[in-house]
């Protein structure tokens, strides 16, 4: 089964929908050091650097046991953020403002298939606009605090520490409530290996992962956009990155 999934990842056609995640310069920083946080857009955990663009940032913060602080950075520069980390676990969080995307019927159909959203929306017959929102987290350091929540519209909350547990276990929340039957995928940075499962009625999902490597866990949800918002759909992209 794993082999089959890997194969699918390798022969997948040119990407249609792109994930968004945070890649820190290190997942195990020494205490009281400065690391960078890159924003990345891509597929199969292979992303293009995204320079800091304050027009798109709703929130860009780092939270640890002591406090929550904004992540500073230089406009239009990559890496987008510079983070001073303390002891223990730090979670860096990014919440984007919505951006518009033009969807063709073909791309939309492929997107629904790829993100496991075919039970949410039907393929459209004509091009339409979609507003997409990014919700990304990365967990660095060690110790408790990995399960801190930021109240994003779509949020993956770790129930076990994904850096150390055999099975990674997340609860997916949509507007604060568990979201059932949503596809959650875990992707390895080294080779794009992919493991996926759907959430249960409590929005919970458990995936057994190899004991090492850098991982991206992601899920995408789709909701009808409010009337006269200039878009027909809103897509919500949640991601968490961590190292095992």
């Amino acid at each position, binding site marked *: 089964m794993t082999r089959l999934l890997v194969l699918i990842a390798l022969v997948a056609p040119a990407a249609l929908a792109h994930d968004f995640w945070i890649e820190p310069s290190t997942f195990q920083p020494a205490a009281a050091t400065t690391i960078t946080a890159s924003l990345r857009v891509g597929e199969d955990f292979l992303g*293009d650097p995204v320079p800091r663009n304050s027009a798109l940032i709703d929130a860009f913060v780092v939270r640890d046991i002591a406090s929550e602080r904004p992540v500073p950075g230089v406009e239009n520069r990559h890496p987008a953020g510079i983070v001073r980390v303390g002891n223990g676990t730090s979670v860096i969080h990014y919440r984007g403002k919505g951006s518009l*995307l033009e969807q063709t019927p073909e791309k939309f159909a492929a997107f629904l298939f790829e993100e496991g959203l075919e039970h949410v929306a039907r393929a459209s017959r004509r091009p339409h606009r979609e507003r997409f929102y990014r919700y990304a987290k990365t967990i660095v350091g060690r110790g408790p605090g990995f399960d801190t929540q930021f109240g994003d519209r779509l949020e993956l909350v770790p129930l076990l520490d994904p850096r150390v547990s055999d099975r990674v276990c997340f609860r997916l929340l949509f507007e604060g409530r568990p979201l059932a039957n949503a596809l959650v995928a875990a992707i390895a940075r080294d080779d794009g290996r992919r493991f996926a499962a759907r959430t249960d009625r409590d929005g919970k999902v458990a995936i057994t992962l190899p004991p090492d490597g850098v991982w991206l866990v992601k899920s995408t949800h789709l909701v009808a956009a409010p009337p006269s918002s200039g878009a027909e759909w809103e897509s919500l992209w949640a991601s968490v990155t961590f190292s095992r």
Partner: protein
Amino acid sequence: MGVPVGIRHLLALILLATPALGHELGTTRVHAVLTDETYTIDVLADRETLQRRLARRPGTFRDVADIRFGERRVIPEVALLADRVRYSGPLQPGAFTWRFELVSTRYPLTIDARGERVTQWIDGDARSAPFTRRMSFREYLVLGFTHILPLGADHILFVLGMFLLTRRTRDVLAQVTAFTVAHSITLALSIYGVVSVPASIVEPLIALSIVFIAVENLIVREVRPRRVLLVFAFGLLHGLGFAGVLRELGGDFIRALVAFNLGVELGQLAVIALAWLLLTSWSRHHTWYRQRVLVPASLTIAAAGLFWMLERVQS
């Protein structure tokens, strides 16, 4: 003099920073330079990401860049330079488009061609909008010339048919001038959209004009004003035919019109000059010129015209 290139680029980017549709703006930049003979496309991107993406899929850097002129995809030379991947090759006719498969973010594609600069925003692996380069005066000139010699067999036969009737300089000049003025008029009018006649009508009529002029060679014996008028009328038709070629190319009309027309003229003069060289040296005696040259040649031309006409009506 003036602003350094880097800052100019930056200014151009800021000026163009419109709220475009698509993914987040990445760090990738693509710069295409189209000269009269070559294209060079530089992809400035995060090299590590490119390499890793490439490693996970079949193919090479050559396969992930889809460069087209018109519908035709070209196979470029690829050079991996310190800070960029460079694609290059000989320029081809047709509108230029670009698609690059190894990028997920939105990026600017800057195209430089003959002093003109255009920037397009491309979202990830989407194809760019077609870019038509302005052709040079010389290129239009060559295009006009080759449209007669060697490509325009029908125009060649018409010009020959016109010339065969008489080799008196004055008569040749009168006909050539009438033809030129006429086709220049309709070429200009249809380029500017004043007249528009579909090729399905113009092309068979051009063939018919060849038959007509050749048959007339068999009937009349000298160039009269009526003949010049006829040539003028047919010239109007041929101009509509030339316009089709130019309209397909697009671009800068006035310059295209003048240069293309000049090319057509030179092509016609070349045909006449060749015919003159071949015929006048040994055909001074009018009696057998008519029998052995004019009649068989005109019949052949008429037959060719008839064949084209039937062929064009059918298609």
